[in-house]
């Protein structure tokens, strides 16, 4: 990649992040912004907490509770950023009607989509921090800030956000060709990851055939590494055989495959959309 391309791509990310932030934060209404970015994710975490308390008779000081709480907190990134990136296509095409002007500009759509997702990443980061702090202070989740493996947390987070970006781009490619199914698609895909990636339970309890799916999804390793970094351990028997280094390596390899697959899907669907005239086609859904 030439220097000018890097510079151009960084500029695209900066611009679309700025645009995404302006739209997400909606400066005109800070109250709504607060609800959306902070209160909502905490409320959804609490739903899970209360469900767990009902089932276990109020026991929150268990390893499983910490496993579920931390997994669920970090999974907010998957839902929010995946949705944030892929939904850009629908918003820019149907609501703002700007997609054709963005599309014909000399920028790479990947970077534009990534930039738009960055705003969601920032907002979600606040939400995750608040959710974990809430868990530590109120629910006594055993996170010892002095013992957190920060290098592992940082590297895992960076790779994880790249994974979610690849998934977002992949879905954005599909969304170029879809209309009112877009919402269900994102919900559905996020639901599959929630089910298969060990977000709120170890993958060991899944049927064997579903565990195969779990093992090819980089998000499974991402969540495992995050738990190890924050809690110092995890509960998955299957993944316990791997060291942090081995898990990181597996995550990087599966991420590389995901990145290639995502690129291929986006390019293919983009080409099909150009062939059928769908890039800027208003469906009014």
């Amino acid at each position, binding site marked *: 990649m030439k220097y000018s391309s890097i510079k*151009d791509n960084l*500029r*695209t990310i900066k*611009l679309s992040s*700025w*645009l995404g932030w*302006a*739209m997400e934060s*909606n*400066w*005109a209404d800070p109250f709504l912004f607060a609800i959306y970015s902070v209160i909502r994710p905490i409320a959804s975490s609490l739903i899970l907490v209360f469900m767990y308390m009902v089932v276990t008779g109020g026991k929150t000081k268990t390893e499983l509770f910490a496993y579920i709480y931390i997994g669920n907190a970090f999974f907010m990134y998957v839902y929010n950023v995946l949705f944030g990136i892929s939904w850009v296509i629908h918003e820019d095409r149907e609501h*703002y*009607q*700007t997609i*054709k*002007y*963005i*599309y*014909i*500009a*000399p*920028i790479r759509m990947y970077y534009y989509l990534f930039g738009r997702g960055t705003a969601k990443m920032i907002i979600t980061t606040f939400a995750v921090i608040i959710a974990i702090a809430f868990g530590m202070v109120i629910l006594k989740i055993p996170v010892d800030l002095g013992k957190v493996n920060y290098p592992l947390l940082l590297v895992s987070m960076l790779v994880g956000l790249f994974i979610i970006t690849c998934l977002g781009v992949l879905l954005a490619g599909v969304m170029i060709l879809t209309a009112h199914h877009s919402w269900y698609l994102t919900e559905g895909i996020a639901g599959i990851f929630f089910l298969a990636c060990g977000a709120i339970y170890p993958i060991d309890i899944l049927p064997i055939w579903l565990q195969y799916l779990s093992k090819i999804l980089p998000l499974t390793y991402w969540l495992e590494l995050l738990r190890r970094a924050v809690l110092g351990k995890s509960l998955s028997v299957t993944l316990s055989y791997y060291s942090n280094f081995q898990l990181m390596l597996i995550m990087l390899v599966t991420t590389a495959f995901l990145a290639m697959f995502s690129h291929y899907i986006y390019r293919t669907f983009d*080409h099909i959309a*150009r*062939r059928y*005239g769908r*890039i*800027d086609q208003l469906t009014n859904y």
Partner: protein
Amino acid sequence: MLSDFAVETLDLCRSFKLKKAKKENNDGLVTALDNVSLTIRKGELFGLLGPNGAGKTTLIKILSTLLLPTSGKALVDGIDVVRHPEKVRKRINMVTGGETSGYGILTVRETLWMFSQFYGIPTRIVRERIDHMLKLLDMEKFARTKIGKLSSGMRQKMNIIRGFICDPEILFLDEPTLGLDVQISRDVRKYIKRWVKENTKKTVLLTTHYMAEADELCDRLAIIDQGKVLICDSPSNLKKSLKRDAVFHIEVGLLTDGLDRFKAVSGVKSFAYEHRHHLGRTLLKFILEDDSVISNVTGTLSQNGSKIITLSKVEPTLEDVFVSLVGKGLEQ
């Protein structure tokens, strides 16, 4: 410089599949462009004139890399739009009329700045350019207004500036004055003319179904109907081609039935009409072989009991050229 031509198309075709419900009476394909071959020179303000659904927007979409052709070739500055869309995008921009696009949360200035940044134009230059363009299009007082609060006319003006802000080599204007009021349309046309005059190497491809707009702005134009280019020349040459014919406009009371019979009158080469409901009148437009044929026309009108309100022999306009080629008016 890659080519002497800003735009070249060769046997360009584009068809669309109809949805199931509409397939019943045909093969399910609609031809939007039918072997279109055109060349537009650099520095030209070239017009595509045709009724709604003629294929103008389809051609612009192909040239701006939004749509792939079914067959044929399309080159922009000598670059194939199918094979190298990313190279084409560095040279072009586009404005589409009659829409209300934009991020409502951003101000006019922020929007223009953002789009210019996608083209990598330094902020210092952009600031001056935005100020200059807002002034020229009388939009200075709206610079800090959020787009969501702009009227549709002002939004369209801002979109026009967005098209010009990156100073593209080739600009596609698709019905840029559609839905605008008279004064704003005039401002926009004035601006387009000025830009082309000041930038002699820049090219504009303008689609319109407003005859006067095409006549006023274009160096050359192509008349397009049902996906086919019927003729391509300068407006003056096109009008000259009708000089030997006699062009008459006759106003009668509102006449809605049996209009086709005028086509059968001996010596009538082409005929079109335009209902003016607000006046309760119909304007009949005839292209005749010679002046003497007018008596046949007035005779037919008398037989029908239609009273002639005005009758005038007129200089051929682009609309008459269109009528002579297509056999109907643009609004019919």
